[in-house]
């Protein structure tokens, strides 16, 4: 370890970890420090997001690691375990702990645990500008003295105090000896802790790996991760036996379980500290903040739902009204790109095959997907705005009672909402759900939220057959998706995840005026995930589909004789009961797995029509009923390839991925057949 640290110093590289509660402004600090130089990935082995960035300060290259936002380091939840293991085993040079100044007591709970762990902490007292409005003041010098670490007041949203924070962190990173905080847990407990600590010091390998005092506290606390580790060593059996007796004795004396006892002591320390450093000039009654006044209206029993619906309506209006012209421009851009590349390739003397691969395959295929970038980014902009302002937490509160119908709770609402834009980032957004069962259910039903990519399919078919009523027809498909999501949610809950779901607990952050910079950055984080997918998996699949349409050699592109056409012909009979048992429809659905809107483009190719003549071609080959059945199929069957990849990544399981593909295919077919057969019986065919 010594050697490693020395090596780091010589190359002037410093690892800085950011720790803090959710809503403490940690992400804003991260963005302010690293700007756009970020890398988003996953922590190894788990599905918790890992963000890293870099910045240069004088001669130092500082690598910033954003730890998951947590309230504690108890290692119960996956994200807490990730943060703790990183601090324990990777030992960053310095840990910047972002503390929400307006909510000091709760935020210091994490700080105390960081200090007990022996981390090299610098506290950023963030949002210190909001203290004035609350008639509060914090004695920064005293806080720093009592915690024995540097404290820097910051306002990350306005870039205030960031220079001082960096300077302080770099200075702290040079410190050699860090003494872990020794919190006084009271006489009885200290006696037991002293004995445990002595035992630990007698095992040099343990004493080296963990701070002995911290380990003693964790052993007494009954930390499952630590106990499991210790159980592996036979010779530590006496230590664990001693713990067992000590816990029994202490719990009997205090009438509380060990964890609560220790948490009580920590909060006791924090409470005392807060009394020393926080000066309040208002009584509790006067402290009804502006946030509370807004909440009286926004979460009002009668006004809450209309306001919520209005916010959702405004969000979709914003997305589609602004997005429609942008879609047109993107389409033109790709058409132009295809032509330019085509003529360029021709000029270079490339064969017809290569030109077709680039033009028909890559440009057309990737273009079809990327066309949806404008509305997706606009939707994410609106969602980020709602999140940053603090409204999203209230929306989750308001819909909580409706979400219970699905056996889920309010927090699942946000991923489902994002699904109307694009299911891929929506599936990633389920990371905020603590309970694994809730998370998998939310992931599985997410593709039923009709995303922006399915709209062009509806527009084509509804436009061709339903004339003035097409708006209603399209709306009915959105509604069908929601109803099926509810039914599936209830079924999965009942048969696949019998256990109790986690209860809804959600922090309601104070309302804040969002800044353009942070809203744009949040939008980019979600949207770029979609773009990255388009850049990798989709290109590969596009090429595969192009190959299937071009082989065997000499066949007309995407004709019935191509492999694609043959597969289409082979699969077509399956869809006969649904009213669209043609090879064209089957081929379109196969292409549609790539991205749902590709269904339209494929039909254009197989009917040999541009998108303009397609409407009349469809009117000839389909009936209103089979068209509706086909739209139902498009809505439900197999999520697109980007979503499938996201499901695999987020559930970390091939099994759930296959299940998502399988159930949606079966459900889609059943619903399409049901629509067609019942419709025929009613004489609508």
């Amino acid at each position, binding site marked *: 370890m010594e050697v490693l640290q020395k090596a780091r110093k010589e190359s002037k590289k410093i690892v800085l970890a950011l720790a803090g509660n959710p809503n403490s402004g940690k992400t804003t600090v991260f963005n302010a420090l690293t700007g756009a130089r970020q890398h988003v990935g996953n922590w190894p082995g788990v599905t918790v997001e890992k963000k890293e960035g870099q910045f240069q300060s004088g001669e130092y290259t500082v690598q910033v690691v954003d730890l998951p936002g947590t309230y504690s380091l*108890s290692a119960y939840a996956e994200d807490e375990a990730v943060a703790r293991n990183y601090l324990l085993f990777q030992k960053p040079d310095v840990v910047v702990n972002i503390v929400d100044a307006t909510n000091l007591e*709760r935020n210091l709970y994490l700080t105390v645990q960081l200090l007990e762990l022996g981390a090299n902490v610098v506290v950023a007292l963030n949002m210190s500008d909001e203290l004035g409005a609350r008639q509060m003041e914090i004695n920064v010098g005293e806080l720093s003295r009592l915690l024995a670490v540097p404290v820097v007041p910051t306002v990350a949203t306005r870039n205030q105090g960031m220079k001082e924070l960096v300077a302080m962190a770099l200075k702290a990173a040079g410190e050699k000896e860090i003494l872990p905080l020794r919190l006084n847990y009271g006489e009885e407990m200290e006696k037991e802790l002293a004995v445990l600590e002595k035992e630990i010091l007698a095992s040099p390998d343990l004493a080296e790996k963990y701070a002995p005092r911290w380990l003693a506290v964790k052993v007494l606390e009954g930390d499952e991760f630590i106990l499991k580790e210790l159980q592996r060593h036979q010779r530590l059996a006496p230590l664990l036996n001693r713990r067992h007796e000590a816990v029994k004795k202490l719990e009997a004396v205090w009438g509380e*379980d060990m964890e609560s006892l220790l948490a009580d002591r920590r*909060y006791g320390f924090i409470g005392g500290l807060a009394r020393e450093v926080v000066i309040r000039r208002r009584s509790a009654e006067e*402290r009804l903040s502006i946030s509370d006044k807004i909440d009286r209206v926004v979460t009002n029993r009668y006004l809450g739902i209309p306001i919520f619906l209005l916010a959702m309506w405004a969000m979709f209006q914003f997305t589609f009204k602004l997005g429609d012209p942008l879609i047109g421009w993107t389409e033109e851009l790709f058409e132009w790109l295809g032509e330019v590349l085509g003529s360029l390739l021709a000029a270079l003397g490339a064969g017809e095959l290569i030109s077709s691969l680039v033009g028909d395959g890559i440009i057309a295929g990737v273009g079809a997907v990327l066309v949806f970038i404008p509305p997706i980014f606009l939707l994410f902009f609106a969602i980020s705005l709602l999140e940053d302002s603090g409204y999203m937490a209230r929306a989750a509160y308001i819909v909580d009672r409706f979400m219970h119908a699905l056996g889920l*709770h309010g927090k699942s609402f946000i991923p489902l909402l994002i699904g109307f834009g694009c299911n891929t980032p929506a599936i990633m957004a389920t990371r905020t759900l603590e309970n694994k069962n809730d998370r998998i259910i939310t992931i599985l039903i997410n593709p039923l939220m009709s995303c922006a990519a399915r709209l062009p399919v509806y527009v084509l078919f509804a436009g061709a057959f339903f004339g003035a009523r097409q708006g209603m027809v399209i709306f009915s498909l959105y509604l069908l998706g929601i109803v099926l999501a509810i039914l599936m949610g209830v079924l999965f809950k009942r048969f696949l995840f019998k256990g109790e779901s986690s209860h809804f*607990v*959600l*922090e*309601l952050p104070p309302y804040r005026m969002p800044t353009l910079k942070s809203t744009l950055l949040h939008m980019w984080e979600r949207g770029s995930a979609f773009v990255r997918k388009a850049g990798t998996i989709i290109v590969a699949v596009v090429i595969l589909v192009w190959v299937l349409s071009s082989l065997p050699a000499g066949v007309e592109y995407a004709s019935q004789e191509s492999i694609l056409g043959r597969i289409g012909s082979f699969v077509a009979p399956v869809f006969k009961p649904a009213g669209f048992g043609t090879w064209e429809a089957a081929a379109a659905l196969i292409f549609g797995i790539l991205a749902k809107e590709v269904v339209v483009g494929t039909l254009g190719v197989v009917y040999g029509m541009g998108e303009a003549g397609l409407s009349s071609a469809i009117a000839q080959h389909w009936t209103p009923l089979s068209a509706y059945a086909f739209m139902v199929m498009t809505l439900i069957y197999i999520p697109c390839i980007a979503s499938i990849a996201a499901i695999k990544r987020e559930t970390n399981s091939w099994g759930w991925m296959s299940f998502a593909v399988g159930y949606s295919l079966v459900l889609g077919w059943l619903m399409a057949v049901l629509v067609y057969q019942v419709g025929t019986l009613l004489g609508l065919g």
Partner: protein
Amino acid sequence: MRGHILPLGFLRAGCSAVVRDLHGTKDLRQRLNNLGLLHGTKIDVVKNDAGSPLIISIGEGRLAIARAMALKIMVEEGS
């Protein structure tokens, strides 16, 4: 004067209370502890409408809490 001990879910908006006991699983208690709810914590009920989660205030923070959870938090009414 000592008030009655009753589940948090029974308190109306505007009431103040002190947490006296936490029921439920270890996991649940842990989560409540992490959010600052433990023995002796002073809380105010900001909102308690039938059918919705409760909103409570702890110091400067506001928490929305499921009703089922609020029924497992035993509190003593009064400030």
